[in-house]
C-alpha cells in the first residue's frame, strides 16, 4: 500500500516492552555523567561525604570537625609542603647534594615520615583502584580486590621468604610476578564463572575473598605450614629476606620509607590508559562493557573479554599485594589478613576516580591520606581518637560510594547551583 513507517514504539516507550526503564549499564550512565560534568561531580561528591562525616563527628563527640580534619591532614604529612626552609637534597647515584626548599630528612621532619606513609598507601590504592576500575570498564563489579590483593601478598611472602641466596633482582621479579599471577588467577575464576555459567561476579568474588582470608589464616596461623620458625605461639610469617625487599627511594628503610613500588603504580596508571585507549584488547573490553549484546553481534567474544578483564583486574590487585609485602610490610600475620581494608577501599577509589587513570591517581591520594591520617600512629590522640577516626574513614568511603552510585543526585545539585548562579 504505502511505505508508511512500520509500527514502532510510541513516544518514549521501550521496544523491549519492559517499560521505559531502558537497560543501561552502570558504565554507560557513568560516562554520560563524566561527559556532562567532568571533574565537578567527583569534587562535589567528596565535599558532600566529608560534610556528612563532619556532622557525625560533631554529633557523636561534640568535637570540631574542622580541627579533626586538620589533624588528619597533618597526620597524613601534607603539612610537609608548608615547612619551607633552607634544606639540601642528595642527587641519585652520587654523594653530592643540592639546595632544596623542603626538608627530606626524616630525623628532622615528622611530616616527611608521615608523607612517606601516605604515599606508600597511595601506591597500594592506585593499584587496587585500577583493579576495580578495569573490571568496571568491562561492565563488571570486582568486589574481590581484597582477596586478590591478599593472594598476591600470600604468594609474595612465600617466595620472598624462600630461595635464600638468589640474586636480588631476580628474587624480587619472581615474587612480584608470582603475586601478580595469583591475583590474576583468583579473579580469573570469577571471570571464568561469569563467562561460562553467568554467575554474578559480585557474589563469586566476595566468596573468594573469604576463602582466601581463611586459607591465609590457616597458612600463617598457629601450626600452619607457613608460620614463622621462631615463635610457635604467634601467628605470623617469617620475614622477607633482605635481598627480596624493594629498594627505598625516600626515607629510612627500617622505618618504612617510600619504596620504588610508587613508580610501579605510576607505570600501572600509564599501562591502564594505554591498554584501554590504544590496544585492541581495550577496544574489546570497552565494547563488552558498554553493550555486551552489540559486541557479540559485532563478532567480539564476550566470554573471552569477561575472563581477560577479570584476570587483568586481579593482576593489578595481586601486584599491589606483592609490592606491599616486599616494600614495607615484610611479613604477614593472620591479624593483617583479617583486618586489611586496602582492597575494599579500591572500590571507592575507582568510583570516585570515575574509572579514569588520572581520576584514580587523585582519589587514591585522597584515600591514602585519609587512611594514613587516621591511623593510630599518625593521628594526634589528643585531638581525636584514632580508632574512631579509622572508622570515620570507612564511613566517608561508604558515603562516597553511595553518592557516586547516585550520580544523579550530584548532577541535580550541580544544576540547581548553576541555575541559582544564573538567576
Amino acid at each position, binding site marked *: *500500500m*504505502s*511505505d*508508511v*513507517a*512500520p*509500527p*514502532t*514504539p*510510541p*513516544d*518514549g*516507550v521501550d*521496544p*523491549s*516492552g519492559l517499560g521505559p526503564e531502558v*537497560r543501561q549499564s552502570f*558504565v*554507560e550512565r557513568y*560516562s554520560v555523567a563524566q561527559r556532562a560534568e567532568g571533574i565537578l561531580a567527583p569534587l562535589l561528591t567528596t565535599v558532600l561525604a566529608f560534610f556528612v562525616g563532619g556532622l557525625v563527628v560533631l554529633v557523636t563527640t561534640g568535637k570540631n570537625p574542622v580541627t579533626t580534619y586538620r589533624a588528619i591532614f597533618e597526620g597524613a604529612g601534607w603539612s610537609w609542603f608548608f615547612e619551607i626552609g633552607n634544606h639540601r637534597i642528595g642527587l641519585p647515584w652520587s654523594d653530592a647534594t643540592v639546595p632544596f626548599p623542603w626538608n627530606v630528612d626524616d630525623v628532622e621532619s615528622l611530616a616527611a615520615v608521615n608523607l612517606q606513609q601516605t604515599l606508600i598507601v597511595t601506591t597500594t590504592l592506585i593499584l587496587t583502584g585500577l583493579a576495580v576500575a578495569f573490571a568496571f570498564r568491562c561492565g563488571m563489579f570486582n568486589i574481590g580486590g581484597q582477596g586478590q590483593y591478599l593472594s598476591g601478598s600470600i604468594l609474595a611472602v612465600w617466595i620472598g621468604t624462600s630461595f635464600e641466596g638468589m640474586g636480588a633482582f631476580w628474587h624480587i621479579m619472581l615474587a612480584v610476578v608470582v603475586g601478580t599471577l595469583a591475583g590474576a588467577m583468583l579473579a580469573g575464576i570469577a571471570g571464568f564463572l561469569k563467562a561460562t555459567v553467568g554467575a554474578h561476579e559480585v557474589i563469586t568474588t566476595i566468596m573468594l575473598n573469604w576463602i582466601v582470608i581463611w586459607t591465609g589464616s590457616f597458612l600463617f596461623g598457629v601450626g600452619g605450614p607457613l608460620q614463622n620458625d621462631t615463635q610457635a605461639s604467634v601467628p605470623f610469617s617469617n620475614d622477607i629476606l633482605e635481598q627480596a625487599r624493594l629498594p627505598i627511594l625516600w626515607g629510612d628503610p627500617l622505618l618504612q620509607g617510600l619504596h620504588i613500588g610508587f613508580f610501579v603504580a605510576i607505570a600501572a596508571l600509564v599501562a591502564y590508559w594505554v591498554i584501554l*585507549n*590504544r*590496544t*585492541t*584488547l*581495550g*577496544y*574489546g573490553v*570497552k*565494547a563488552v562493557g*558498554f*553493550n555486551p*549484546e*552489540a*559486541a*557479540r*553481534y*559485532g*563478532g*567480539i*567474544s564476550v566470554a573471552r573479554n569477561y575472563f581477560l578483564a577479570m584476570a587483568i583486574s586481579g593482576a593489578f590487585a595481586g601486584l599491589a599485594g606483592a609490592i606491599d609485602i616486599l616494600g614495607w610490610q615484610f611479613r604477614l600475620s593472620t591479624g593483617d589478613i583479617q583486618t586489611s581494608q586496602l582492597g575494599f577501599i579500591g572500590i571507592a577509589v575507582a568510583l570516585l576516580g570515575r574509572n579514569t587513570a588520572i581520576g584514580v591517581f587523585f582519589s587514591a591520594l585522597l584515600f591514602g591520606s585519609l587512611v594514613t591520617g587516621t591511623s593510630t600512629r599518625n593521628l594526634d590522640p589528643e585531638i581525636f581518637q584514632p580508632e574512631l577516626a579509622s572508622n570515620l574513614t570507612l564511613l566517608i568511603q561508604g558515603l562516597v560510594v553511595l553518592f557516586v552510585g547516585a550520580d544523579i543526585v550530584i548532577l541535580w545539585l550541580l544544576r540547581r547551583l548553576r541555575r541559582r548562579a544564573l538567576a
Partner: protein
Amino acid sequence: MSAERPVVLEMEHITKRFPGIVANDDVSFDLREGEVHALLGENGAGKSTLMNILYGLYHPDEGEIRIKGRTVELGSPRAAIDAGVGMVHQHFMLIPVMTVAENIVLASEPTREGVLLDIRAAERRVGELSERFGLAVDPRARVQDITVGQQQRVEILKALYRNAEILALDEPTAVLTPQEAGELFQIIRELTSQGTSIVFISHKLNEVAEVADRITVLRRGKLIETLPAEGATEASLARLMVGRDVLLRVDKSAAKPTAPLLEVNGLHVLDDRGIEKVRGVSFTVHGGEILGLAGIDGNGQTELIDAMTGLRSLASGTVKVEGVDITSRDVQGHFDAGLGHVPEDRQRRGLVLEFSIAENLAIHDFGSPPASRFGWLYPRRLLERAARLIREFDVRGGGPETRAGALSGGNQQKVVLAREIDRDPKVLIAAQPTRGLDVGAIEFVHRRIVEERDEGRGVLLVSLELEEILSLSDRVLVMYEGEIVGEFPPTATEEELGIAMTGGGRKVEAA
C-alpha cells in the same frame, strides 16, 4: 451512524510538551457511546501521547478532559481506571510467568477471609466475562504459553474486568496476522454493540476505513481533521496523514539473479530453553536478488538469523557462502566469509551507543590491519575511514568522534549500513532494517538495499511488515513455526501471505 448518541469523552485543547518537541499541540478529540473513533497518524504524530494522557500516564500541560460531561483529573492509571477508561497497549502489559486470571485481576483481586487471594473466584469471573463478550481464553493458562492474539484478548478482558466503558486500543493489529485482525474487528463490533466506546489507534489506512465510524487525523502533534469514515478514501486519508502524496512502491528494475551465494540447508536450531525454533529450513539466496522472509514475530526468524551468522549454535544443517561451508566458524568467521548483517535492533545489537561513530564502524575489523597491528590500535586510521563513510552514506548530526547514541534513529541505521556494506559482503542479511524510522530514512534504506542488489550482492530481507516485504523483494518466503511454508512472487497479495503466515495451506519446502 451514531450522531445522536451521547458523548462519553471529550478531550479539549490538549497540549503536551516534551523537551525539544510539542507532542500534542492544541488537540481536541471526542468519543460517543458505542462508536469506534480511529486516531490516525504516522509514527510520532502524537497518537500515543494523547492516549497516554487519557490513561493517566502523562499529564497534559494545557487542556481539559471530560468524561460523561464531568471534568476529570486523570493523575494516574488508577484514576483513569476509576473513571471507566481502559487501555490495550501496543506492547502488552502482561506478566508472562503468571496465569491469565492472575494477570486480569491484578490490583483488583477477589479475596477470601479478607486476606487470601481467591484465585477460584478470579477464574470464574474471567470465564463469565470471556463468555459474555466472546473472548475465548483459558483463565488458568500461563500468559507465556498462549498466542499473541489470545494475549490481546487477555488485555481487553483486563479492561472489561475493571468495568471500562471507554477502551483505547493502541496499534492493536501491529502484532496480528490479517486473519487475527479480522477476529479482532469482530470482537470490536461485539463490544460496541454492548455499549463500549472504542478509540482505535492506527497508521494503517485500510483497517481504519474498515472498522471506524469516525476518523481523526493527527500530524506532527496537530489535529488535521476529524471526518466520518463513510466516504473517506485511502488516498485522501494518506494525504491528510503524511501531508503530501505518498510514494506507493519502491522504484526498482527487474532482478537479474546470478549464481547462488548463500545456501542454507536443513537448518535445525534450538532456543535458550531448548525448544526447537527452526525446524529444517533450507533456501538459497542468489546474487542480484532480494529474498524476503515474511512471518509473524516469534516464528523462528530471530533464531534462524542468529544461527546463520554464527551467533547461535545449530543443532544440524549447513550454511554455505559461495559454496564454502562456514557452519562451524565463529561470528567473526561468518563476517570474514562475506556475510553482512544489519541486526534487528540497532540500539541494542547494532551499535555500541557509547562508542563514537568511528569506533562503531570498526567493530568487525579492529583486530586486523589496517585498524590495528599486533594488538596495537591506530585511532587515526579509524577516524579517516569514518570521515569517508560519513560522506558516502550522508550520515548527519555529527562527525567521526560523535557518540553513536547522539544520532537520530535514521542516522544510526546509516552507520550500521555503512559498516556492513563497506566490507563488501557477498550477502547482506537485513533484519527489520526500517523499524522505527521516519519516512525519509526508510526511503534511504530501501533505495540503498536495492542498489546493493543491483551491484550483484544477494540480500536476505527479514521483516514483520508485509508492505515492506512485498515492495522490496524479488521472491518471498513465508516462515511459520520454524518452517518455510511457502514461496510467493512479489505480486502476491497480503491475504495470500497472511494465510501462509498462520499455517494455512502448508506447502512443501521452497527451494
